[in-house]
């Protein structure tokens, strides 16, 4: 065989001729050869490389798949007719809790309620909501809810309970022993009928209605003056001048949702309207209403009675009538009387006093001003307050004397919120038969031997008549989550009747409401239609001749006028806007909602005037002892009248879920519920320091044009008053402004309409799954709210002007946050939205630093259980347990630890609106898409729309002379703008 050689060396040395005799290599070895130097000896080739690739892929697949747990998504076997996955259903219903009422829509997704929205069709609330209404959906998923009937701590079946209760009821009936049904104010026609039937069945039952804050004085005064008991209907939208004596009608008095709408409607400066009502607030604590007033006169509560009498006298003087001999009034009162007289028939005087004689005088003033029939009327009434305080006092007496043998309570918690709560609880323990019918545990139910838990209102049927001839229905959004039964069904079954309350309502409506209308030919269509609308408001004409008939006015006047000035420090109790009387204290959204005026959450505290604080050397956070009874932290509140202090009720719950337990201090025992104040309070500084959770610690605007404002007179002369530089810097850049050819979403906030109530912030929290962080985190300024309401004080610290400004992401078209993100996690959409890609965010927080509006929120800890690292959850409010996670909006992703989040202008709602329009082959209509904050707002201060749609309501507002961008001088070109605040100050 010829020998072929490649080179001379090979020929000479004979190398390479011997084939490699080494052992054949195994697979793995061959593969590893490719890492060797590129010598001829190593025979790895393309195939080996592919093998290696395959091997790595297989290994990485195996390794990666080990980690993932299997999660099952089970589709419907039979799809419910109404439920389309991914599409929300809305059901018209009503919110009613104690004295709070609101007509609502329940938004459900895949059969679970996730959001409450206002019902536009309601003639009472007109689509407005309050923070409590917005937050109520979370209570449905409250872990502390009663899950089944109980006897002591022992679980019962409903049949067993029914048997026990019936036996007891019959025993007491046969023995004719006194028995009380204690409820909150009931303004449901069907429920009233059920109760009446119940009383007919068990005649020994006495029905007592109890409100923690009753409106008895109003009811009695109307009865005395006009012979018609009940709370009058107030129309703040008809009043050109409002004088309020300590009535926080925008915050907690009677029906704030309705009042806010009326009040702001009258003060809305658009469509050529350049008139506003003039609002004077005379009060001691700076309330939400006082902070919106055009003029606020801080006085001590004890001085108010005399002032009211003086005002009455001045008005009588102007009316040319006989006057009473009372101390001469000061110039303020004379002026107010003069102004009121000039707005005769179009003015309104209200008082929050619980003293009947005060309310009588207020009625007399309104009567003299001929306001009846226009700004208020007694023939139409508000029904949400019915309690008579004396009934409760009698009940306590009977309980103590042992006369009372049995009690059923429903929707009330007197052990907590009654002034003699302690005595009540002692007496309650002695009663043999006590039955609670609440849905969640409270101080009162804890002492009761039997428990028949009620449904949550989102699981219930009911009807309401909150105001005369304004009916509404409540329908369930979900079947009862637990083994609970509606209060009314329980009563019905104990009477031995059909326990189906829905049938009862239908029958009741067929008999009573159906005849009130003529539009529907049969009851079924009437019922279905009403159920769909949620409300039924028959136009019933009523003619009522309001005649003031009170013989002994003189004695009332003298009684009020002679009350000596109290020299000591006077204490007032008030309901906080978020927590109310404490029934919803276990709601973390409400606990974390800052008070609109003080910006404090998760606590109650003693409001002290700046002068007093100076005298006693107190600072915010110092703890004082009040009458050696309670220790409270101090908040120095500008505007608080000197020598007065105030503290919120509703805090200090002892028996409730983990969220509300021991938050703040219960102060209900300090003051009888029918007294306005108590004098001669002793304050002692203890030297202790307490950390209050404040979301805003700096209260001055520092002279910056942040909230731009003007007086009404200036505004009339010059519509751009206070906003002279409006949009002057719009085209200041050498770069062209970005263009958005299709949509350009924007938002406008009318600062003249915003009263600062905070409904928007809870709506946003609910819509966008904004986490709750807890008190400690709020103290560290880690709160997550996407929309906050900034509150600034200006002017005199003893009686400051207050401005509110909702601030959310401004969606700048020239956004400082966007260009600093190294990974482009925040960027601009083609429709002008500043968007966040949470998955891309690595959490450098540079965007947050560079945001001049400081609206970006960082997930400091794992608040949502979305983090991949175990055992680092920071969840103080059980928000991540399965039950409460049912409230999450599936359209909005929850954010993991370490990412930035912020307002998206409810991009999920925009998307839904666009898709709906696309399906129907049309353009998006103006007003079709509403952000959650806009939806919730009772005053219509927030308007969302398309800046490219020249016909839209939004563009109408943005082209107003009052329109400005926040910090427009730094040329961020926000899509959110504001309208100046106009104050109707009289010189």
């Amino acid at each position, binding site marked *: 065989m010829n020998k072929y050689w490649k080179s001379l060396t090979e020929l000479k040395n004979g190398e390479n001729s011997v084939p490699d005799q080494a052992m054949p290599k195994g697979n793995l070895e061959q593969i590893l050869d490719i890492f060797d130097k590129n010598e001829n000896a190593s025979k790895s080739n393309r195939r080996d490389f592919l093998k290696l690739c395959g091997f790595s892929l297989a290994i990485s697949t195996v390794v990666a798949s080990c980690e993932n747990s299997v999660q099952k998504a089970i589709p419907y076997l039979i799809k419910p007719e109404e439920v389309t996955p991914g599409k929300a259903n809305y059901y018209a219903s009503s919110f009613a809790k104690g004295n709070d009422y609101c007509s609502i829509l329940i938004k459900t997704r895949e059969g679970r309620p996730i959001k409450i929205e206002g019902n536009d069709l309601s003639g009472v609330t007109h689509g407005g909501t309050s923070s409590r209404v917005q937050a109520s959906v979370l209570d449905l998923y409250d872990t502390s809810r009663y899950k089944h009937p109980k006897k002591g701590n022992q679980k019962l079946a409903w049949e067993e309970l029914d048997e026990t209760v019936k036996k007891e009821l019959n025993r007491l009936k046969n023995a004719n022993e006194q028995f009380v049904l204690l409820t909150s104010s009931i303004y449901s026609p069907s429920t009233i009928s059920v109760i009446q039937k119940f009383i007919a069945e068990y005649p020994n039952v006495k029905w007592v209605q109890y409100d923690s804050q009753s409106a008895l004085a109003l009811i009695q005064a109307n009865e005395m003056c006009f012979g018609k008991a009940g709370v009058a209907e107030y129309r703040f939208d008809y009043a050109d001048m409002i004088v309020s004596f300590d009535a926080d009608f925008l915050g907690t008095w009677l029906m704030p949702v309705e009042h806010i709408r009326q009040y702001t409607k009258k003060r809305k400066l658009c469509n050529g309207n350049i008139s506003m009502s003039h609002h004077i607030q005379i009060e001691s604590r700076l309330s939400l209403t006082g902070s919106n007033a055009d003029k606020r006169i801080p006085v001590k509560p004890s001085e108010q009675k005399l002032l009211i009498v003086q005002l009455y006298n001045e008005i009588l003087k102007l009316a040319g009538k006989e006057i009473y001999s009372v101390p001469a009034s000061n110039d303020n009162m004379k002026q107010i009387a003069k102004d009121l007289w000039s707005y005769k028939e179009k003015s309104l005087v209200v008082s929050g006093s619980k003293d009947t004689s005060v309310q009588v005088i207020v009625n007399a003033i309104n009567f003299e001003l001929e306001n009846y029939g226009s700004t208020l009327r007694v023939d139409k009434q508000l029904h949400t307050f019915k309690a008579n305080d004396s009934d409760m006092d009698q009940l306590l007496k009977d309980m103590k004397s042992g006369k009372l043998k049995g009690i059923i309570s429903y929707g009330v918690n007197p052990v907590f919120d009654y002034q003699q709560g302690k005595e009540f609880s002692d007496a309650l323990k002695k009663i043999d038969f006590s039955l609670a019918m609440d849905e969640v545990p409270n101080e009162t139910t804890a002492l009761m031997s039997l428990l028949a838990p009620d449904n949550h209102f989102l699981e219930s049927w009911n009807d309401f008549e909150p105001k005369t001839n304004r009916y509404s229905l409540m329908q369930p959004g979900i079947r009862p989550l637990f083994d609970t039964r509606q209060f009314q069904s329980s009563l019905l079954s104990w009477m031995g009747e059909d326990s189906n309350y829905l049938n009862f309502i239908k029958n009741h409506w067929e008999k009573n409401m159906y005849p009130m209308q003529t539009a529907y030919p049969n009851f079924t269509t009437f019922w279905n239609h009403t159920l769909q609308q949620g409300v039924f408001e028959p136009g019933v004409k009523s003619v009522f001749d309001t005649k003031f008939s009170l013989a002994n006015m003189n004695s009332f006047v003298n009684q009020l006028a002679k009350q000596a000035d109290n020299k000591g420090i006077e204490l007032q109790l008030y309901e906080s806007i978020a927590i109310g009387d404490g029934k919803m204290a276990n709601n973390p959204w409400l606990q974390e909602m800052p008070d609109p005026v003080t910006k404090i959450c998760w606590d109650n505290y003693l409001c002290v005037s700046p002068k007093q604080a100076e005298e006693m050397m107190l600072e915010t956070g110092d703890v004082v002892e009040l009458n050696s009874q309670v220790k409270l932290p101090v908040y120095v509140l500008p505007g608080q009248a000197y020598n007065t202090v105030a503290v919120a009720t509703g805090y200090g719950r002892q028996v409730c879920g983990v969220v509300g337990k021991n938050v703040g201090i219960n102060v209900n025992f300090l003051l009888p519920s029918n007294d306005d104040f108590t004098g001669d309070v002793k304050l002692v500084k203890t030297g202790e320091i307490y950390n209050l959770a404040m979301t805003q610690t700096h209260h001055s605007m520092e*002279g910056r044009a942040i909230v731009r404002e003007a007086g009404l007179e200036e505004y009339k002369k010059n519509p751009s008053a206070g906003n002279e530089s409006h949009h002057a810097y719009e085209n200041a850049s050498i770069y062209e402004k970005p263009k958005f050819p299709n949509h350009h979403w924007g938002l406008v906030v009318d600062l003249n309409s915003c009263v600062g109530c905070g409904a928007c912030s809870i709506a946003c929290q609910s819509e966008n799954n904004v986490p709750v962080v807890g008190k400690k985190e709020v103290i*560290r300024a880690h709160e997550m709210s996407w929309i906050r309401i900034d509150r600034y004080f200006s002017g005199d610290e003893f009686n400051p002007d207050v401005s509110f400004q909702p601030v959310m992401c401004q969606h700048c078209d020239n956004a*400082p946050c966007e260009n600093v993100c190294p990974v482009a996690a925040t960027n601009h959409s083609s429709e002008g939205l500043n968007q966040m890609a949470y998955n891309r965010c*690595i*959490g450098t927080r540079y965007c947050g*630093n560079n945001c*001049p509006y400081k609206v970006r929120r*960082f*997930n400091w800890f794992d608040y949502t259980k979305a983090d991949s690292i175990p055992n680092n959850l920071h969840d103080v409010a059980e928000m991540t347990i399965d039950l409460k996670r049912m409230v999450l909006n599936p359209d909005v992703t929850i954010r993991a630890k370490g*990412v930035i989040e912020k307002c998206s202008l409810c991009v999920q709602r925009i998307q839904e609106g666009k898709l709906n329009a696309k399906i129907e082959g049309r353009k998006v209509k103006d007003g079709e898409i509403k952000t959650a904050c806009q939806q919730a707002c009772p005053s219509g201060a927030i308007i969302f729309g398309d800046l490219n749609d020249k016909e839209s309501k939004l563009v109408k507002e943005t082209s107003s002379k009052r329109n400005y961008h926040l910090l427009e001088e730094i040329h961020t070109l926000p899509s959110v703008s504001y309208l100046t605040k106009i104050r109707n100050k009289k010189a």
Partner: protein
Amino acid sequence: MYVSPIREPLVTGKKTYKKITDEISAPIEGKPGKAWYAGITLTVSALLLGLAMMGYTIWQGIGTWGLNKTIGWGWGITNFVWWVGIGHAGTFISAILLLFRQKWRTSINRSAEAMTLFAVMCAGLFPLIHMGRPLLGFFVFPYPNTRELWVNFNSPLLWDVFAISTYFTVSLLFWYVGLIPDIGTIRDRMKSKFKKWIYGLLSFGWTGSAKHWQRHESISLILAGLAAPLVLSVHSIVSTDFATSVIPGWHTTIFPPYFVAGAIFSGFAMVLTLLIVTRKVLNLENYITVGHIESMNKIIIATGSIVGIAYITELFIAWYSGVEYEQYAFLNRATGPYWWAYLIMMTCNVISPQLLWFKKLRRNLVFTFILSIFINIGMWFERFVIIVTSLHRDYLPSSWSMYEPTMVEVGIFIGTLGLFFTCFLLFIRVFPVIAIAEVKSVLKSSGDQKDKSETKEKH
């Protein structure tokens, strides 16, 4: 070569080449003393504390730091900028002074460059751990991916990524290239086979041939040329983290030169802090002479004065601009709740270096050492003042807030000090603290024995 008689000798003690090699290699060949063990115990403990705190931060979240909705950066970024600044002296000494033919740099460049590397390592840690999701930190690199995600080249933070990594790479190369001849020397002197093998590997087969020297010289020069602009660019880019923002107190065009001057200022202070101790402990007084200290003090006074002028310019421009937010930001710096930080910054950075106009103080080691510590503190506070006081009260007073660090942040800072000094302590046991070859190159021209002989001959 003629040397002016008034110029101080750069190497004293009548050294011979052998003596130089012996003395500088001594710490590597001998056993470390008790002080070294004590030192490394301390620094490693600090490092471990820092690691624990970093782990805790990553596990629990940035919420463990004292930051809040208003103040998104605090100690973390302050430390980052401080360390980057410190990392400026090394490259400045070796690159810029090389280009300017400053011979005195030969005694200090090695340790200064090592210090640079360690400082940049410490600095680099902070951007990573201050992220909310550090495990996804790789997102900052523009790597090709199927999701077509790309980084944002507008962001100064991204520029930082490139600036710092480039700076670190070039500094490392420069330092290592300079080390190669010395590693060769050490290799030849090592008796243990293992060590010989290690140093052999590290020396890349250095033989000291003319070809090697020639290549070594040219690569050094090329790297010096590359590194010199980097000295200026790195801190300029770091300063754009602030300067490109809209926050009053950050949005300042003077920042790049001001930051670079500040960086060199603080870098030299740290070099002084380290070398004043090192020369004593390692008996290198003849190599790092009082003259060297004085030269560095002169640079400190120059850069310190630039920084002082920058501070005053900032105040002037804030007033002159007529922008109320700017004016308030600077008023608040000086008189707001963080006035004490501003006072510390002003005292340490502007007033104290002015004392160096006195020759006596310039040449006083104890004074210089104390002053260098002052400057280190002052420059830390400068960054704290810029970051925290600007953020805590910006545009909307409703969001104004206060910041105080938690133990976790303090622990991490102590941890980086631990890392820095641990690395330095290891470095002095492993590599020659002074560039042997380079010092030898100036011995004949600027050593004291040479001076005397030459002057004698002439006179």
